[in-house]
């Protein structure tokens, strides 16, 4: 019996397998000749950081989910988001001679550009689902818009991400319905989850001077607001829930002023890489 490491090379089912023919991998972006403009690179960092931090949060669920099926689903979403983050950060890094890992592991907290919403703790399952609902509807609209970006790489990354985010959205919607219409307790928890997260929604739609520089390479956040509000209101109504009336919190994540949570996330994420600077893994 052949037990060598290469004796089962015909497997197709493993999630650990790098699928062949999948053209747009972060590894390919890292060596492509097209460089982003400074503005596009800064924009890609924003997109990458949101996905990276949310992926980190979701990966905290692995081995802790309410059902095994959710361990798989949340892990899968975390993996998709990590893939998007790797692509955006690899692309951004080309402008400055940096790799995805340079940007993820060796930037300081104030150099991150993530939104406060993605930094929020997982809380109970309902909090995570509420956050997923908000972010996935947002990213669904955002990537649909960015698929038409004048920057070819942003457009290509977004086209791929768009397909995956549609699944994240569906997952969040289905759970919002189950929790909203399931039991009294689940509805109560879901209402609370929406209320504590709602203050961070406003930041999703804040325009920056950067968006003027980007022109048609980017999507103006404020342009997504009406559609987002319409979509989330429809889902919440179907789930027997209401749009919260809590006020917007003052958030400056895009300027490097973060929630108190980000420092802990980065401390954990970066600890090993920083202990061995210059090492490869």
């Amino acid at each position, binding site marked *: *019996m052949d*037990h*060598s*490491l*290469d004796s*089962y*090379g*015909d*497997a197709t*089912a*493993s*999630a*650990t397998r790098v699928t062949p023919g999948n053209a747009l991998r*972060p*590894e390919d972006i890292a060596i492509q000749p097209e460089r982003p403009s400074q503005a596009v690179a800064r924009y890609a960092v924003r997109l990458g950081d949101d996905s*990276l931090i949310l992926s*980190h949060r979701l*990966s*905290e669920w*692995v*081995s*802790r*989910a*309410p*059902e*095994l*099926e*959710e*361990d*798989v689903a949340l*892990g*899968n979403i*975390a*993996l998709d988001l*990590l893939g998007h*983050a*790797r692509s955006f*950060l690899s692309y951004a890094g080309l402008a400055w001679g940096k790799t995805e*890992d340079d940007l*993820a*592991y060796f930037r300081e907290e104030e150099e991150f550009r993530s939104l406060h919403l993605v930094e929020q703790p997982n809380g*109970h*399952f309902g909090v995570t689902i509420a956050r997923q609902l908000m972010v996935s509807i947002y990213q669904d609209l955002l990537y649909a818009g960015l698929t038409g970006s004048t920057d070819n790489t942003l457009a290509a990354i977004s086209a791929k991400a768009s397909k995956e985010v549609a699944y994240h959205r569906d997952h969040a919607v289905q759970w919002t*319905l*189950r*929790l909203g*219409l*399931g*039991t009294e*307790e*689940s509805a109560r*928890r879901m209402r609370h989850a929406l209320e504590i997260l709602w203050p961070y929604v406003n930041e999703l739609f804040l325009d920056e001077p950067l968006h003027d520089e980007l022109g048609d390479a980017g999507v103006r956040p404020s342009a997504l607001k009406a559609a987002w509000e319409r979509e989330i209101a429809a889902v919440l109504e179907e789930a027997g829930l209401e749009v919260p009336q809590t006020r917007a919190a003052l958030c400056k994540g895009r300027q490097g002023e973060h929630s108190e949570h980000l420092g802990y996330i980065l401390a954990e*994420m970066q600890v*090993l*890489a920083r202990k*061995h600077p*210059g*090492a*490869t*893994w």
Partner: protein
Amino acid sequence: MAAQNDAGGHLSAVPSPEEQAGLERFNALIAEDSRIEPRDWMPEAYRKTLTRQISQHAHSEIIGMQPEANWITRAPSLKRKAILIAKVQDEAGHGLYLYSAAETLGTPREVLNEQLLSGKAKYSSIFNYPALSWADMGAIGWLVDGAAIANQVPLCRASYGPYGRAMVRICKEESFHQRQGFEILLELAHGTEAQKRMAQDAINRFYEPALMMFGPPDGDSPNSQQSMEWKIKRFSNDELRQRFVGMIAEQVKVLGLTLPDPELRFDEEAGRWVHKDLDWDEFKAVIAGNGPCNAQRLERRREAHENGAWVREAAAAYAAKKAQKAQVA
């Protein structure tokens, strides 16, 4: 008496004609190396043995997620992080289809889960050791998944159909896991001095527990004989163990690292690998619940189960309401 009890699950001395016919057919299928399928008649003891073995395997996949999940948030590169998340996801998937295979024998998943949470059911002892460094992700992949593959490849031919088929898929995925573990160690072995030390330390800690994954020595493995007769098991524990140790003895040279076993050698005369004596007292103590992480692993499962209760209730209530609505409409 024992034969009747095995056959019919009760102590009646005379098997019914149906039982007699079922047993004859079962024996014939086993003798011709065919597969037993869920609707076939089977001896109660065969059903019980398989339910125990398959569910233990499923539990091992689920508990085995924990030591690796421990390093997802700290993985030292984004690529390694992605591979590790995918690997842990594969394990949840393995758990799911092994529970399904066990369910075909008549025990529902909730009951199996209850047996795990109450501590009644066992899982692979190796997961009661902690994952202390990043190199442990390499050692677990290379040694633990490697030992699992050596154990499981023969199970692809197990006489019970759903189990054998599940093992085919699992073995394919495990081989990728083993390869990624080896790659982690290879990278560390070619890295800085600190990385090399990390890799060697992980191998030192996981070598013995990995060898013990094949189970007690043949002389001390009471269930093995019956399992071999039923063609669930194809090779003895010691046979598989020596094959595995021979494989890793070669592979460790590629890493430029060593196995912590000065007695390891190939015995030309006997045609088999010889390794040092393993600490079976420790093995028994860890199985009995005294490993470094037994309490922690089970508590994590219980916590996840309890914290998720309201979610599962909501999902069930929602499904019931939807079904009712569909009926009315």
